[in-house]
C-alpha cells in the first residue's frame, strides 16, 4: 500500500511482533502485524478471542501490560514512532492524539464523580481547548466554560436532557448512556485516532444500534479516524472502509470492505463469514468451523489455522505464510495464493 496517493496515514504499523511472558515462558502473541489507517478512514480489526486484536490496540496506545515485550516492528502515529518512547512521552501522546474506548464503560468512569465533572475535568488539563488563542481565562471562567462544554458534548452524543445527566453519577446511567459519555470524553481532545475495542458487545441490541449510528454520524461530522475492533462481521460491514482479519496473533487478510465480503480469500475469513447465518436471506445453511481456537502457549506449527482449514496443503503445517499482495488494497497470508494472482 506504499506509494498510494490519498489522505495522510494516521497510523502505520509495520511488522509488529509482541511476546508475552506467560508462566515465565515467552509466548508469541503478535506476529508480523502490518496495517495502515488513513485520515478519516475506519479500519475494522476483526478476530475472535486469542486473535491479538486487543493487544494490537494496546500496543498502538503504548499500553502494553508489564509482561509484554515488543520484539520487532514499528508503530508510527502521525509519522512519529511510538515504540521506544518514555512513559511520560506516551502519556502526553495519548492525551493529545489517541482516544481509547473499551467494552465496559463502568470500569472507565470514576464512580465517585458526576458525569459532568469527569468530562469537565478533561478541560482542566487542556484549558487551551476552552479559550481562543492568546486568551487568558480566570480560574472561575475556565470552570464555567468547561461545564458548559461538558453539557454540549453530552448533547453531541445524543444523551437526552444533558443538564440533568451531567449531575448524575455513572451508576445512575444505563450501559448505553455510560458508553456515550465515554465516547464524548474520547472526542473532546480531538484525537487523531480513536480506538474502539468491542464497545457494543456488552450492550443490548437496540442500544448497540444507537451507538453504531452515533459512530457513523460522528464520523461524518468530525471526520474522525477510527480503529474499530470487533468480532461481529455485521458491524464491520456497516461501519468499516477497510478490514483486517486476525487469527491467533497473525494478520490473515487485509482488504477493503467490499472485496472482503464479496470475495474473501483466506479460508478463515471465508469460514467466519459463513459461520453466521444472515438474517435477511432465508434459512441459510450454517457451516461450522471444526476444532477450536489454538492455545497461544502451544500453537500449531506453520500456519496456525491449518488444523481447522479444509483446504490445507502440506506446506501449511511446515511454513508460516507471509502476506502476499493480491491487488492495490488486498493482501492475504496463505499458501494457496501466489503474489498478484488471485487463486
Amino acid at each position, binding site marked *: 500500500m506504499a506509494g498510494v496517493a490519498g489522505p495522510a496515514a494516521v497510523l502505520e504499523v509495520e511488522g509488529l511482533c509482541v511476546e508475552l511472558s506467560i508462566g515465565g515462558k515467552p509466548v508469541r502473541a503478535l506476529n508480523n502485524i502490518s496495517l495502515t489507517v488513513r485520515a478519516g478512514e475506519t479500519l475494522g480489526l476483526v478476530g475472535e478471542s486469542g486473535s491479538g486484536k486487543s493487544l494490537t490496540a494496546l500496543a498502538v496506545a503504548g499500553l502494553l501490560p508489564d509482561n509484554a515485550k515488543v520484539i520487532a516492528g514499528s508503530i508510527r502515529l502521525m509519522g512519529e514512532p511510538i515504540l521506544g518512547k518514555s512513559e511520560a512521552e506516551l502519556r502526553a501522546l495519548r492525551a493529545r492524539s489517541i482516544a481509547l474506548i473499551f467494552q465496559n464503560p463502568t470500569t472507565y468512569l470514576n464512580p465517585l464523580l458526576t458525569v459532568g465533572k469527569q468530562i469537565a475535568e478533561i478541560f482542566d488539563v487542556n484549558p487551551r481547548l476552552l479559550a481562543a488563542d492568546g486568551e487568558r481565562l480566570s480560574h472561575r471562567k475556565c470552570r464555567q466554560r468547561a461545564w458548559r462544554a461538558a453539557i454540549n458534548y453530552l448533547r453531541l452524543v445524543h444523551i437526552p436532557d444533558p443538564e440533568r445527566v451531567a449531575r448524575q453519577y455513572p451508576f445512575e446511567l444505563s450501559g448505553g448512556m455510560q458508553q456515550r459519555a465515554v465516547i464524548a470524553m474520547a472526542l473532546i481532545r480531538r484525537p487523531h485516532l480513536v480506538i474502539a475495542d468491542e464497545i457494543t458487545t456488552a450492550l443490548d441490541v437496540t442500544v448497540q*444500534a444507537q451507538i453504531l*449510528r452515533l459512530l457513523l454520524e460522528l464520523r461524518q461530522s468530525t471526520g474522525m479516524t477510527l480503529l474499530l475492533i470487533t468480532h461481529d462481521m*455485521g458491524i464491520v460491514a*456497516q461501519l468499516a472502509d477497510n478490514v483486517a482479519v486476525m487469527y491467533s496473533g497473525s494478520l490473515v487478510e487485509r482488504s477493503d470492505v467490499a472485496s472482503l*465480503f464479496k470475495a474473501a480469500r483466506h479460508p478463515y475469513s471465508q469460514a467466519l463469514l459463513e459461520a453466521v447465518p444472515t438474517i435477511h436471506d432465508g434459512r441459510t445453511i450454517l*457451516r461450522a468451523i471444526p476444532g477450536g481456537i489454538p492455545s497461544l502457549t502451544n500453537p500449531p506449527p506453520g500456519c496456525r489455522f491449518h488444523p481447522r482449514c479444509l483446504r490445507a496443503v502440506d506446506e501449511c503445517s511446515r511454513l508460516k505464510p507471509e502476506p502476499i499482495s493480491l491487488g492495490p488494497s488486498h493482501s492475504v497470508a496463505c499458501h494457496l495464493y501466489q503474489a498478484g494472482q488471485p487463486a
Partner: protein
Amino acid sequence: MSEPPVIAVDGVTKHFPVRGGLFAAKAGSIKAVDGVGFDIQPGRTFGLVGESGCGKSTLAMLLVKLLEPTAGRISLDGESISDLKGRALKEFRRRVQLVFQDPYGSLDPRQRMLSALIEPLATLGLAASRADAVKKADEAFELVGLDAEILKRLPHELSGGQRQRVVIARALALAPRLMILDEPTSSVDVSVQAQILSLLERLKQSRGLTYLLISHNLVVVRYMSDVVAVMYLGKIVEMARSSALFAAPQHPYSVALISAIPVPDPESRKLAALARGDVPSPVNTPSGCRYHPRCPYAEGICRESEPALTEVRSGHFAACHFPGLATL
C-alpha cells in the same frame, strides 16, 4: 394438532416485591413476568427473544420450578406442575431440563466431568448401577462429540465450547422431554457458535427433542426456531411462525429489534436505530403500552391503555394498537 403441547403456559405472572424504607416494607414490585401465555408443540423449537429485563430468564426459571409463579398455570404434557413433590417432582426434573446461560458457572468447579454427568442420573434414579450410569455418560458425550478423555477433567481445564457441550450432554443424558436453552451461544466464540448450533439442530432431529430457545441474538433464534415470541418488560408483544415474524413483523419493537442487527453486507448499509432511549428496568413499568416511551409511532391511546395480544393475521399475534404500522 391432536397431541397436547409439551408445555402450556397460561397467564403466568411473577412479581418480586421491592422492599424499602425503615422496616423493609413492601414498596412496590418488579413485574418480571406479567401474564405470559404460549404453547410449545412437540418436536418444535420455540424461540423467545428479548433484551435485558424482558423476563425471559425469569420465565425459564419458572418453567424448571426454580421459582414459583405468583399467578397463572404451567402444564407439562397436560398436567399442572404447581404441586409436585417427591417422586413426581423428580420425574418432572428429568423431563424438563435447562441448559444455563453460563456453562462455566453451571458446573461445580471442584467436580470432574464424569461425576458431573453421573450425579443427576443417580439423584433422579435413572441408572441401575454405577456402571450403567458411566455407560450413559459415555453415550451422552459421544452424542455431543466430546472425547471421553474430557470426563476426567475439571471445568476450568476446558474451553468455552467444550463446557457448553458438557452441559448439553448432562441434560441429554436424562432423555428430557423439553430442553430449555438459555443463550446457548453467548459465551463461545463465533467460530464455535456454529458448531454448537449445528449440534443442537442435529440432536433435535435425531432424538425428537423439543426446544425452548431463549436468546437476545435474533440471528440465532431465526436459524433455529419454528415459532418465535418477542418479549418486552415481562410481556409477549408479538408471537408468530418464525418465517412470518421475520418477513413481516407487526409490532414496532420487533421491527426495531430486527432492523438493529447490523447486516454483514457492505452494499446494504441500512442500520436503523428505531427504538429510542434505553431498555427500561422492570421496576417502573410505563403506563399503557409498555413500549410507548420508546416507540416512534406512539399516540395518546398508547399511553393510556395496554394493548392485548391479539391475532392480527392467521397464527400471528401482536400486542399493539397499530399493528403493522412500522415496517422493516
